[in-house]
């Protein structure tokens, strides 16, 4: 399965502890939330101006740190 997007420079990944989701942080500053079973982009967080090298889900709350 391939997760297509404009920028192919992924810097960080994080699997959700319960849902079939992956967070991907990109060189262009975007953070993407994917459903890896369906292969669809659920959401996009576009607030960073610089590359986002790391991202991690909280284990129980709907939070992530970037």
């Amino acid at each position, binding site marked *: 399965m391939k997760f297509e997007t404009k920028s192919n420079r992924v810097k960080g990944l994080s699997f959700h502890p319960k849902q079939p989701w992956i967070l991907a942080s990109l060189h262009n500053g975007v953070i993407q939330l994917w459903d890896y079973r369906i292969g669809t982009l659920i*959401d996009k967080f576009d607030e960073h101006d610089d590359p986002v090298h790391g991202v991690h889900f909280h284990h129980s709350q709907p939070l992530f740190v970037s």
Partner: protein
Amino acid sequence: MPIKPLKQVWDYQTKSYVQTLKGHTQYVYVVCFDPEPSIIITGSEDGTMRIWHSTTYRHENTLNYVLQRVWAQVRCIDL
């Protein structure tokens, strides 16, 4: 050039920014939520790793072993 504070903690349900972790003076490369204890660990090009409380987001500690850049960190999970 100073690095401007980043909107680092996010709520993905409300899609809102929760908190900025202020302290690092260079780019942050590694981030980690740790459940036990309840902390956030960050590593940066400024050569330090910092520990934050993950509910109050208070800066708890700075680890400075005169590293160059902190590119990666390894977590040990006690199952």
